[in-house]
């Protein structure tokens, strides 16, 4: 006869919380502090830091969708850059159509113009994203090699369509009147637009964290990234989730494109391919599929490229690659490894 010992029902307090991994987060302040002696002068360093944060947050906007798409369905979209270019061009068109709003000195009207441009870019890029998923990506699920080739081919075609619609010339992208120039506090020049980019990026990161960590939808997405089969076995259709995430990711990339266009004050079709390189580095650093890792990675890349761009401009792009190599030597799966794939 076996004796059964009653199992005491576990109270909530007994459940061990998942250990928080703070180490990667520390890398950001470490990098910022390390850069101070390299740059030399304090005001320059502060300006570069703000610029780096702004650039990092824009990269994060673009990269977060890609990393989630990969985590959910194991799809690596090499054509993601096209949504950036599309967003940038839609942004240019909207902003020049709202010429009256951007020229006025009222901050509210200026902000509304940028808001409209970003919204239009996000809507167009999101719609095209759904089409892209349906036409290009869906027939090749589960086939890595074909995915890379087909999404690359989709990018070639889409890039040519953009060239046909908007023409091959580079478009200047004017920032609205009250966002030109910079504030100056105690010798530190802070460009107004960069401040706006930092605010917007942080707001979206906060919203995304809340969505992913505090809602049922977010729970499903995170669970799907960790183990898709299990979530499907529970009766949820990960496919629908995936289409939603793909559309949201494309929309964010479009918004990021508008912001990046304003950041550079210039838009070309090469903007997509140019960002693609940074995005890949960022999501590899962060760990494929991890939004938190993507955030840390984007800030690190943005900061490093601004510092190195100032100290040694010739090796700028290599700085991001060097950063990636160092981090992968420390954690071969990226900062926050997600799935065991």
């Amino acid at each position: 006869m076996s004796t059964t010992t009653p199992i005491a029902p576990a109270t909530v307090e007994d459940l061990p919380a998942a250990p928080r991994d703070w180490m990667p987060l520390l890398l950001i302040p470490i990098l910022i502090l390390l850069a101070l002696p390299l740059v030399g002068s304090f005001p320059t360093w502060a300006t570069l830091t703000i610029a780096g944060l702004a650039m990092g947050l824009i990269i994060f906007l673009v990269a977060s969708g890609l990393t989630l798409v990969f985590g959910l369905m194991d799809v690596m979209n090499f054509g993601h850059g096209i949504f950036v270019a599309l967003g940038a061009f839609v942004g240019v068109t909207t902003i020049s159509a709202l010429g009256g709003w951007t020229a006025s000195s009222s901050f509210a009207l200026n902000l509304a113009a940028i808001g409209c441009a970003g919204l239009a870019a996000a809507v167009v890029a999101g719609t095209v994203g759904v089409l892209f998923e349906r036409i290009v990506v869906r027939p090749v699920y589960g086939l890595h090699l074909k995915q890379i080739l087909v999404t690359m081919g989709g990018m070639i075609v889409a890039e040519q369509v953009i060239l046909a619609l908007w023409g091959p010339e580079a478009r200047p992208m004017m920032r609205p009147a009250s966002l030109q120039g910079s504030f100056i506090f105690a010798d530190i020049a802070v460009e107004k637009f960069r401040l706006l980019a930092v605010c917007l990026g942080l707001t979206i990161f906060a919203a995304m964290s809340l969505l992913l960590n505090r809602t049922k939808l977010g729970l499903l997405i995170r669970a799907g990234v960790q183990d898709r089969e299990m979530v499907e076995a529970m009766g949820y259709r990960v496919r629908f989730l995936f289409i939603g995430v793909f559309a949201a990711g494309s929309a964010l990339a479009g918004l990021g494109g508008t912001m990046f266009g304003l950041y550079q004050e210039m838009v070309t079709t090469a903007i997509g391919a140019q960002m693609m390189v940074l995005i890949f580095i960022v999501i590899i650093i962060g760990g494929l599929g991890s939004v938190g890792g993507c955030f840390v990675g984007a800030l690190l890349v943005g900061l490093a490229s601004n510092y190195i761009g100032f100290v040694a401009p010739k090796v700028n792009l290599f700085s991001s690659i060097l950063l990636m190599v160092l981090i992968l030597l420390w954690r071969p799966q990226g900062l926050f490894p997600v799935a065991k794939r």
Partner: protein
Amino acid sequence: MLANIFSQDLPRSKVLTVILVVILAGLLATPFIFPGARSLNVGAKIAVFIVLAASYDLMLGYTGIVSFAHTMCFGIGAYGIGIASTQMGPTWTAMAVGVVAALLLSTVLALGISLFSLRVRAIFFAMITLAVAAAFMTMASQLSDWTGGEDGLNFKVPELISPAFSLSDEKFLGASLDGKLIAYYLVVVVSGGLFLLMLRIVNSPFGRVLMAIRDNDFRSEALGYRNVIYRSLSSVLAAVFATLAGILYALWLRYNGPGTTLSFDIMIDVLLIVVIGGMGTLYGAVVGSALFNIAQGYLQDLLKLAHGNIDTIPVIGALFHPDRWLFWLGLLFVLSIYFFPFGIVGKLRAGALARKPTAT
């Protein structure tokens, strides 16, 4: 005898054999039947791109890994010749130094990237090569003291293959026997040799292991082959052949710049050639390269014709603009991945197989 030269891997389709013979004969006879700088250029470019695309196929079609740093090796080869010639003068010694240095550099780079990224996941390799290639291209245009920056390098080649050299004053079959002609045949013959060498490699036991890894990497690992080692070797071999193609291209053009060999556009061209010609069949590189280079030259003329008639329709008209020729090739690329995964060559071979169902 013939089968041995082709490493027992014959075209296996009559139509394909005819196409290949026409391409080979066309390349060999170009100086005599189409005299003129433009057709010679197209011929030499086809020959060089056959080697470049075939070496890419070694990785993509036979091993199943995607690299975006292939043009980096192509560029290293071309810059090797260019820099050696500008720094040491146009002698054969300088050429040899350039060749050895370029081969060493691309071997080391390819080995480093492969061992670093192929260990984790094959998809890492595609992403990391993309990043490294972009960084390398920026660096090449930044180091303008050596590479000439965005403008590139114009350099001299040894006298024997430079246009100034003349074998005889008399014309032979309408072509002047000068260094340009020697250079052309050097490019074509060496390209042919390299192609046969690659055919030998993919039909060796080593090549079989590569295909086994492509088809089922889990199983090949279980059979005792170290996938990482074989994949890395394949990517290093591909890099070496791409470097050699770059060397030939530089010897032919006597110019090299970022846009000629390093740029991402060339990478896309190579992808188009390999996929449309046929992945996993080296002959696909030959067919694709000939088709692509001819299309590049003449599709634009065709589009110009079409554009003239319908340029009033807003978007469709713009897509027929001669500068948009890549749109049509890109469309063909996507469609061929869906419907003819083994490209033109695969289609032809399947047709030949269907016509004689009783054969072995």
